[in-house]
């Protein structure tokens, strides 16, 4: 008798076929023959690829990052270089032209190159803040969710308190606190340095992640496969590390992308207040560029604000779309598939 091999109906639906007439000795419920299946990770990747916006954004972001990484090549001028080596007349505030694609600023630097350097700094701040926030938040959230009790209560009240204040206010206050208190200086570095800002953002960034992870932990804690691990003697650490976190990758990745967007935005906002980064040696950030161009929005030098803002928006949109795509990809639509 021929054997039919059926392909899976849906990624999550069960698949099986039986072997007519030939009964495997001693086996009642015959093992199904399955087609090469995919791990949940591959499935998620497939789903991500279906989200057009996310894919396009990922490509755009990749190109941007490439530009930034290859800045010695892609940027046309050095950090402090003037556009015209020979001071042939005025370099300042030139509109976009062949030598300076995005024009120049009031000091005569090429805006295009500046933007590349700025994106670099902003991305570093954004990614570092998001990564550390997620790591810290995941650990705190996992412990709070698993143990419950006093630790959980305290953590949740802390997050409640901080979330009650508008973020900008909190950031500004904390920034000034950090720069004023002398004994934290060795930890956080000079005010306005990248390290300083990352720490500042992490102080507020871990909370959202902690809540999220805590919620995941609490819902997954009662699932039978976790009970099964406990029945075999798994410690709580193992349960969190091997079972809960891997099943929470989706929300964590989304948090990560949101964190990057948030940090970049916060950096820009702080810059507008004049508390932006001071990355040192004349470097700049996207936020600083946007802030510095505050005046020129009304004035004749439109390029000084349009291009930085445009890139900022583009960057933010891309990362947001990627976050959307990640959320769709990892959302367990029907993980309980039944024929």
């Amino acid at each position, binding site marked *: 008798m021929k054997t039919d091999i059926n392909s*899976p109906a849906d*990624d*999550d*639906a*069960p*698949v*099986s076929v039986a072997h007519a007439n030939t009964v*495997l000795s*001693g*086996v*009642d*419920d*015959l*093992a*199904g023959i*399955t087609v090469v*299946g*995919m*791990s*949940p*990770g591959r499935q998620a990747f497939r789903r991500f690829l279906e989200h057009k916006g996310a894919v396009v954004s990922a490509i755009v972001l990749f190109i941007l990052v490439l530009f930034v990484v290859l800045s010695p090549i892609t940027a046309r001028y050095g950090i402090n270089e003037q556009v015209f080596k020979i001071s042939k007349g005025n370099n300042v505030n030139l509109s976009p032209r062949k030598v300076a694609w995005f024009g120049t600023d009031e000091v005569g630097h090429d805006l295009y190159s500046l933007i590349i350097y700025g994106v670099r700094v902003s991305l570093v701040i954004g990614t570092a803040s998001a990564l550390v926030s997620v790591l810290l938040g995941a650990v705190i959230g996992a412990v709070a969710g698993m143990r419950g009790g006093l630790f959980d209560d305290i953590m949740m009240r802390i997050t409640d308190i901080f979330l009650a204040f508008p973020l900008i206010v909190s950031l500004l206050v904390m920034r000034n606190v950090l720069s004023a208190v002398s004994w934290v200086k060795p930890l956080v570095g000079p005010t306005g340095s990248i390290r300083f800002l990352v720490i500042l953002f992490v102080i507020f960034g871990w909370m959202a992640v902690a809540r999220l992870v805590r919620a995941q932990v609490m819902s997954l804690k009662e*699932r*039978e*496969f976790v*009970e*099964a*691990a*406990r*029945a*075999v*003697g*798994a410690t709580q650490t*193992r349960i969190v590390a*091997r*079972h809960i976190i*891997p*099943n929470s990758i989706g929300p964590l990745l989304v948090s990560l992308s949101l964190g990057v967007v948030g940090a970049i935005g916060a950096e820009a906002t702080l810059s507008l207040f004049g508390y932006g980064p001071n990355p040192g040696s004349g470097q700049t950030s996207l936020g600083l560029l946007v802030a510095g161009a505050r005046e020129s929005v009304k004035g004749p030098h439109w390029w000084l604000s349009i291009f930085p803002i445009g890139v900022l928006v583009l960057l933010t949109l891309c990362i947001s779309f990627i976050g959307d795509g990640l959320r769709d990809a990892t959302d367990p639509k029907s*993980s*309980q*598939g*039944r*024929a």
Partner: protein
Amino acid sequence: MTEPILEVEHLVKQFTVKKSEGFRSIKRSVHAVSDVSFSITGGETLGLVGESGSGKTTVGRCVLRLLEPTAGTVRFKGTDIAKVSAKEMRGLRKQFQIVFQDPYSSLDPRMTVGASIAEPLTIQGIGGDHDKKVADLLELVGLAPDHAQRFPHEFSGGQRQRIGIARALALDPSFIVLDEPVSALDVSIQAGVVNLLADLQEQLGLSYLFIAHDLSVVRHVSDNIAVMYLGKLVEYGPAEDVYTKPAHPYTQALLSAVPEPDPAIERTRQRILLEGDVPSPINPPSGCRFRTRCPIAKEICAIDPPELKDRGQGHPVACHFPQTTMVSISDRTAV
């Protein structure tokens, strides 16, 4: 073997539930399990039946100390596991395992089935060739060894349940709690898994605590049956006795409510229809907990909780008025 492998004595489990009414928080006790005792000898199956609120699932969890018993002893091969330290417990866990009800959530979706089956070995620090052990186990439960690399979603419900059984066997336990192991499966698949469990019991000398609400399956697999109602054992005895000569009114009602796949029987038998729903274990009735729905309840039932003891039926019953005549499921002319 006549040595009991598991002896449960006066097991009690209470949960506290906080209900907030306005500004006050009221603590309520859910009396999930109230003074349950039974024993299982090696190689034997005890079927534990009951409806929702009976506490049977809680008993299953307490016996493995997946839930901490509020009181009572759980003696496994002589050692009271309710009292040992957490560290000692971890080592003891090798000897008793559990198979869960829902094949769709009892396996970690992100781990290959091979990894899920091997996990107990890793956790308990058992060395040797894990891959071989996993392959052997898969074969033992009727699956192909090369399926170890697949993920749970690639298998059907029946197959996943088999994988769960393989995982439970990984540590070579002598006792397994089966928590509704076939309830979530299609009828024609259930039979296969039930057969597998019987085969394994014979091959490996396992003892089972078979928790279920499907009375026909329980009858088929059990040597003894314990019937629970609202946290208490109401009847306990050899399977055939409990089925053919149920003495407790609840057992009788339960058995008469089970639909038999035989129109001749179904259409002619008398049924005991209970009124209302199972009361909540937060506030169980005084005296005999079944009295609010019992067709023969008398005054004494509200005052004096009946002890579980043999009152002449040949097996223990917890009722002041155990029935000698009954509506048997194969009896067409009932009392």
